[in-house]
């Protein structure tokens, strides 16, 4: 039986995509035979039906991962070899960039140029970063007892783990990139992986599974179990033989994962959750420049970004000028069909999301906010899920639109008088993923960036992350960090070894 189906992409032609479950480098159907369907968000037409992994399938994947961990992976292979395989995988992704970008664009609605030049390029770089790091995380020797005792630490991979994808919200937003952020450090560390991609956007994760096998990773090191969050995802979070779960998604689901982990085997948990990230713009800032970055902050990926800059606070003096500048950016946005090379703003991922965002906009209007621009479906979008870039002003800080994460192209712009007030308003949130400050006062830049409660703070820019810089949330935006050295440390556990040289233990004491 074939585990491949074809999708027709506008520019790359007909492409084969696996539709099964990937365990031990082989494809198989779901043990129940069930499937779930996927949709093209630009047309609302169905794409492919994908096997729905059952609890038994998850068990099978976990067994395969455990076996690989004990025989062909972890400390059974040198760190340099793990790195070499990741380099090979990166090369294969580079080879297949056009195909992967075409399918990513088809499944998520993002502009194909963005998929190629951002998603794929950054993911390949992420793989290379961790490939190079694999043999460089050292333990320490601790010389407190010299002749009496030799103490040292070693970093060991955490059993094996399951990075989990969400159930209909995040992160179908960057399928390939979030895939890379999870598997690269995990595999570099020596962990084996059971991965559930989002049921909204599993196609590229499935294609990438074939590349993992082609690169030469031993069977069982990496396994893919597509399915829904409530079923497949829960089976993973609850599994007694998974040592760590890494989740990117909503706070709601993050809580569920955390509870499931606690109720089962207290597996280690890292969470990358939502955000309502503030941008604070002072009078001394270059308003045009700030508007450029603020536009990127909220309309990149159509606002479907955990670290989207969705609240802007502009100091009184710069307010009018800024709103005018941002409005101009909204109107200049390159909205279009995903396959159009010019497009950098596509549809939202699903009808559900689109309707949710419209409800938020309505709630904003009902609570007294002003719609400066946008606020509606994008008319030329037809059956697709586009919403226009939207700016809301006249915001009261207790409105729903400014407290809750909208996850769409809607930004709330407010004003403030002085630095203390601006910082307080920015920090007035349960989230803490990212923040930004725009100012030409160097002391203010350092002061304010220190004061903002967020895991990533941008000064005079937004949105640009780096594979070497850790990323993660304060407060309810998450637990733990991805990227950078921290990103790999999170897949390792420290073992302290005390080797007796001359100590004796008198008994009775």
């Amino acid at each position, binding site marked *: 039986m074939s585990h491949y189906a074809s999708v027709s992409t506008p520019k790359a032609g007909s492409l084969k995509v696996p539709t099964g479950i990937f365990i031990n480098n082989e494809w198989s159907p779901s043990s129940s035979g069930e499937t779930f369907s996927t949709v093209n968000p630009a047309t609302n037409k169905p794409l492919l039906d994908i096997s729905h992994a059952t609890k038994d399938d998850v068990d099978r994947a976990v067994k395969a991962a455990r076996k690989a961990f004990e025989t062909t992976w972890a400390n059974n292979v040198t760190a340099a070899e793990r*790195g070499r395989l990741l380099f090979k995988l990166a090369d294969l992704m580079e080879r297949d960039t056009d195909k992967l970008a075409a399918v990513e664009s088809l499944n998520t609605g993002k502009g194909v140029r963005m998929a190629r030049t951002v998603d794929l390029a950054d993911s390949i770089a992420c793989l290379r970063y961790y490939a*190079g790091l694999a043999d460089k995380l050292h333990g320490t020797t601790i010389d407190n007892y010299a002749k009496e005792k030799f103490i040292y630490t070693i970093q060991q991979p955490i059993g094996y783990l399951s990075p989990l994808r969400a159930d209909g919200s995040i992160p179908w937003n960057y399928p390939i990139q979030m895939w890379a952020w999870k598997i690269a450090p995990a595999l570099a560390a020596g962990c084996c992986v059971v991965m559930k991609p989002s049921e909204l956007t599993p196609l590229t994760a499935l294609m990438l599974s074939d590349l993992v096998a082609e690169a030469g990773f031993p069977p069982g090191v990496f396994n893919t179990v597509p399915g829904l969050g409530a079923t497949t995802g829960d089976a993973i979070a609850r599994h007694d033989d998974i040592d760590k779960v890494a989740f990117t998604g909503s706070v709601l689901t993050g809580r569920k994962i955390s509870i499931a982990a606690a109720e089962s085997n207290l597996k280690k948990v890292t969470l990358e959750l939502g955000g309502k990230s503030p941008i604070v713009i002072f009078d001394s800032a270059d308003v045009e420049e700030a508007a450029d970055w603020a536009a990127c902050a909220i309309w990149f990926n159509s606002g479907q970004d955990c670290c989207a800059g969705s609240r802007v606070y502009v100091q009184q003096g710069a307010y009018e000028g800024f709103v005018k500048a941002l409005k101009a950016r909204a109107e200049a946005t390159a909205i279009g069909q995903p396959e159009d090379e010019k497009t950098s703003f596509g549809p939202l991922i699903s009808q559900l999301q689109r309707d949710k965002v419209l409800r938020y906009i309505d709630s904003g209007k009902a609570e007294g906010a002003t719609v400066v621009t946008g606020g509606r479906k994008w008319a030329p979008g037809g059956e697709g899920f586009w919403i226009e870039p939207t700016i809301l002003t006249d915001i009261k800080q207790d409105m729903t639109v400014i407290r809750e994460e909208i996850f769409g192209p809607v930004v709330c712009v407010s004003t403030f008088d002085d630095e203390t007030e601006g910082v307080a308003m920015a920090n007035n949130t349960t989230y803490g993923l990212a923040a930004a400050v725009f100012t030409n006062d160097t002391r203010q830049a*350092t002061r304010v960036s220190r004061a903002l409660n967020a895991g990533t703070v941008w000064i005079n820019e937004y949105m640009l992350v780096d594979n070497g810089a850790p990323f993660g949330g304060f407060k309810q935006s998450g637990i733990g960090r991805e990227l950078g050295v921290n990103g790999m440390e999170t897949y390792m556990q420290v073992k302290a070894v005390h*080797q007796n040289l001359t100590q004796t233990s008198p008994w009775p004491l």
Partner: protein
Amino acid sequence: MAQTFTHEFNHAGFKGKVEVPLGLFIDGKWTTSVDKGAKTIDSVNPSTGEVICSIHEGLGADVDVAVKAARKAFDTTWGTNCPGFERGKYLIRIAELIERDVDILASLEAMDNGKAFAIAKGFDVPQSAAVFRYYGGWADKIHGKTIETSSLKFAYTAHEPVGVAGQIIPWNFPLYMFSWKIGPALAAGCTVVIKPSELTPLTALYMTKLIKEAGVPDGVINVVTGYGNTVGSTIAAHPEVDKVAFTGSTAVGRKVLEEASKSNLKKVTLELGGKGANIIFEDADLEEAVKYAAQGFLFNHGQTCCAGTRLFVHQNIYDKFAARFKEITSKTKVGDPFDANVYQGPQVSQTQYDRIMNHIECGKQEGAKVITGGVRHGKQGYFIEPTIFGDVTANMKIVKEEIFGPVIVISKFEDEDKVIAEANQSEYGLSAGLFTKDITRAHRVAQQLKAGTIWVNCFNELHPQVPFGGYKSSGLGRELGEYALENYTEVKAVHVNMGMKCGFPV
């Protein structure tokens, strides 16, 4: 116009035509010396004594040109102008090209240096690629720190590339030493002027082709062939070279440090000689210890700075050990590097051969007993029989001085503290080995041996990830591992005022 050397290899391991540029590689181009007085230097095949080819000689003036090119590249296309991950990509590409051309490089190395082709192919070449790959992974991970002092200040360090690095490498592991030097330098953002040994320039010259093919920007790596007392000395003394890294003899190392100190106080790292002690305790796995002891002094024909050339065997196992050691050692296959069964090829040159034979004669004259070897192997070429000397005393020349050949001295010991003292009684401190099954003793002795690398139940083990370098006169600084990056970075501390006011006058 720089020449090219074309050679047709036709041996069991590789058949094919190879072209090696013979010129100086400066600013991305192959060229001859700017000095009209420059000649050519013959590269000799130590297996036959015949001239392989004549390379172009570089002189001090060429170092000037190379340094200018390196400086220009550092200021424009390298250093902080090229993000770490880009620098890493070049290094990884170089590693891939080395792996692609393994047979070519191994053949050139065996022909030029005399080491067995099988060993060049199995060790030197793949390990060189591994080192390039390892440092390719470091390039974007060279972190400084942010440091808490007070809330009124933001303090951080930046690890910046030192600048232009001058590098002088030896003839014993030509390609491997090339990778040890270039890898961390480029990863850190430095540009390089490197002088390969005039005895073994061929693999370095071939590498200039791979460097070009990898797309490394012009001027980032410059190769200037020539003699130590011209090219090497100019590098060490050059006012525009920010750092010099030298691997070679302790005698020349001193000169490099002097020149560096007299000129611009450039940073210096030195990897010098050694006289490695290898201690075999009573409970050692005898057979394994014998084999490691043999490998310890015969690997690379004894032309290894970290060779284990002073063997101390516990008296209770001495007779058994010595007999087996003699047996294993005398079975070593010496001969043509391209013969797949050969372990030990010729010494690299007539000069080296003479020096080693001199030491052997001296040993005999000072009263040491030849247990095996002590003579030339065969009738021509620089081949020497693996040689074991017994009945030695601490003040003999063959015990004190580095011989750099297949010669080892063996003695008995009884007391652990005494043998450690004897092992440490050396001006050198590069490496040491110890064999025991008692883990407590292993750690205890390892702690007390004064050497930069201690091998427990093994010998001559090197990894790109693990640092290597000498105590005492064996050197300054460490290479390999994360530690090597320190040699090519300067730490800059930045203090940003976040609210202090200056009370002046006080």
